[in-house]
């Protein structure tokens, strides 16, 4: 048992630090250009633009420890804006189930970040029960294309996307997990209508997408007809683990402490208030624990074992911790947390309330916490329910 980094790991960490320092955006530089340049330079390091991709597709082939180091180092660095939909969600499905032609056609653009993707899974009325989707795809008699009609919802960044990867129903006679087909659909065409959904924090990032009689050539189908659920499902669990955001929470907690120290209470600060201090301490303790839970999970993966039962905890605990940090930030903001859209009083109060409101979604999307517990009860504790 040991958690020390090896000399090679230390060397790697230094290399990461140097790289990140060199490639920070210069003040005044053109953001979009810098962004594309950054990914080119990262690619030149040997796959640092796609850390999680397998080596055969250009990934760096890092050890779990190296991944951990990368995550720790990048969480405080100002990396360019990146969306997970192409890189993290579609790419693995393409690699595993796409044809050679599809891989050649789509993967390079994904890697260059020159094409934006969105994920067309959720539907109104389906919620965490994704498989009950109803968007219909009907194969033409000549077998050349599908005609797709239906509605997707909570589609993040649909209004910025060039393409959608989309689960559709091609058969509704059997059990609902069967008869789902995985299609790739261009967004900029007639029959696709994107309606913004404004969420509690006032932000627009999710959308409703109405799809009406859109023709999709069969070469845009991934794998076999009716097998789409199988392709998507594995990634979902993977996505969930990624949502724990533990490194980000460590940074967020340090910010919270600094913010609370900036709030004066008599001669002292809010961080000296026993009740507030206790809540921060309890949060930090849970974070110290869950950080090691993540390491245990990484170590298990490194030794080739299945991720242990501990990995199932990560999304649940991770998102709960995010929300607690957000809530304490609002509490630290005090009277100023009520102000909306203007900077008033404590500097952090404005983004604090936005973060708290937006963060309520963390325990809903990617499988609501209640559903996660059902999954753990079944898969980890081995319980059934009648």
């Amino acid at each position, binding site marked *: 048992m040991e958690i020390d980094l090896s000399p090679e790991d230390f060397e790697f960490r230094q290399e990461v630090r140097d790289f990140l320092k060199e490639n920070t955006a210069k003040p005044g530089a053109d953001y979009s250009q810098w962004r594309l340049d950054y990914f080119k330079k990262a690619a030149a390091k040997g796959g640092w633009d796609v850390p999680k991709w397998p080596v055969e597709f250009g990934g760096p082939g890092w050890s779990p420890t190296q991944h951990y180091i990368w995550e720790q180092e990048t969480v405080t660095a100002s990396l360019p804006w990146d969306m997970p939909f192409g890189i993290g969600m579609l790419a693995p499905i393409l690699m595993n189930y796409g044809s050679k032609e599809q891989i050649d056609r789509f993967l390079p653009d994904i890697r260059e970040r020159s094409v934006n993707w969105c994920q067309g899974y959720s539907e109104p*009325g389906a919620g965490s029960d994704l498989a009950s989707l109803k968007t219909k795809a009907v194969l033409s008699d000549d077998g050349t294309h599908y005609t797709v009609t239906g509605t997707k919802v909570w589609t993040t960044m649909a209004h910025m996307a060039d393409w959608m990867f989309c689960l559709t129903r091609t058969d509704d006679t059997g059990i609902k997990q069967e008869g789902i087909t995985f299609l790739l659909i261009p967004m900029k065409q007639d029959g696709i209508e994107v309606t913004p959904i404004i969420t509690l924090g006032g932000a627009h990032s999710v959308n409703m997408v109405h799809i009406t009689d859109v023709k999709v050539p069969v070469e845009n189908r991934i794998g076999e007809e009716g097998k789409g659920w199988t392709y998507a499902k594995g990634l979902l669990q993977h996505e969930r683990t990624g949502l724990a955001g533990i490194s980000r929470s460590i940074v967020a907690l340090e910010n919270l402490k600094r913010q609370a120290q900036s709030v004066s209470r008599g001669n002292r600060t809010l961080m000296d208030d026993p009740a507030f201090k206790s809540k921060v301490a309890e949060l930090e303790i849970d974070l110290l624990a869950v950080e090691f839970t993540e390491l245990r999970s990484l170590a298990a993966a490194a030794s080739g074992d299945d991720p242990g039962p501990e990995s199932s905890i990560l999304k649940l605990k991770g998102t709960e911790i995010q929300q607690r940090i957000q809530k304490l930030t609002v509490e630290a903001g005090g009277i100023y*947390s009520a102000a*909306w859209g203007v900077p*008033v009083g404590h500097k952090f109060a404005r983004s604090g*309330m936005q973060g708290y409101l937006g963060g309520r979604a963390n325990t809903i999307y990617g499988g609501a916490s209640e559903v996660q517990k059902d999954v753990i009860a079944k898969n980890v504790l081995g319980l059934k329910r009648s």
Partner: protein
Amino acid sequence: MNFDISEEQQLLQQSVERFVNENYDLATRRKLVDSPQGYSDDNWSQMAELGWLALPFDESDGGFGGNQIDTMIVMEQFGRGLVVEPYFANIVLGGGILKRSSNDELKTSLLPGIITGDVRLTLAHAEEQSRFDLDDVVTTAREDGDHYVLNGKKSMVPNAATATHVIVSARTGGGQRDKDGIALLLIDSGDLDGNHFPTVDGGRASELSLDNVRVPAERIIGDFNLLATAAHDAVLALSAEALGCMEVLYKSTVDYTQEREQFDHPLSDFQVVQHRMVDMFMEYEQCKSLLYRATLEAVQDAPTAARTSHALKHLIGKSASFIGENAVQLHGGMGMTEELAIGHYFKRLLVIESQFGNTDYHLTQFAD
């Protein structure tokens, strides 16, 4: 022992309920919230006509002689409707201070206007360093002949942009956290610089600057004790409003989960969802009980009344957070949207949490 409200109070309750039903569907409210002023003059006039603006004042002053139970009834219904008119700032805070003031001249000159809705008051007590402490005041009121000269900044003043007068707490003497040496002065809004902005619940607030504002000595309304009494009333009124919000939230959640299917069952079929809603219901009922207790103790001027009001705001804060967060959670993605009402109730509760002391603050006050 009797927890029924009187017949008169029942009529009041029905009248406010009717007003809310007729004027406060979500779309109409959104228009009000998005308007520059943030509320409706018509609604305000209607409230005056219905006599609600006169509710707490003595009959000899043209009022209805209502007490905290009457205010509770109005505020609870306002909570259920998410009413945005400045009843709390004007009648509960401003009116409450004025009605108890020993400055009879001010009272005589202002009350008729308050009752018609033409005079609109608000209270500016908070400052950046004060957080929730009423006695932490650095705004100064320096005596200068028969005037006071005020300097300082006041924070998060509710509905100041539409107020005709602002009651300001300022220090005429004593150290930063002394209760002695705090005076409440009535200032014409025109004498103040204001930065006006919306709040997250669709309300309005302001940061106010006092830059050598000269106020005649006869504009002193009261001292720290009057401020503390106003805060006590404020806690009761906000708690009643919060109770109204919580009732809507827990009941909508019970309704929604019965309609919404997931995994081939209504959400409400799941035992975990049921027990969560039972917990929400129990929190609501406990808050209701404590609101009654605190309000009755205030009406009877019981020695424990102030302490019980701290207990109340603490419990309301804890329960509002539990009920609000779980209402959002159990509504799933829909709970996250501006489209459904529940998000708006949730946001109103968040603002109430920050008004007149949050959950932790009142626990400390209660325990000390």
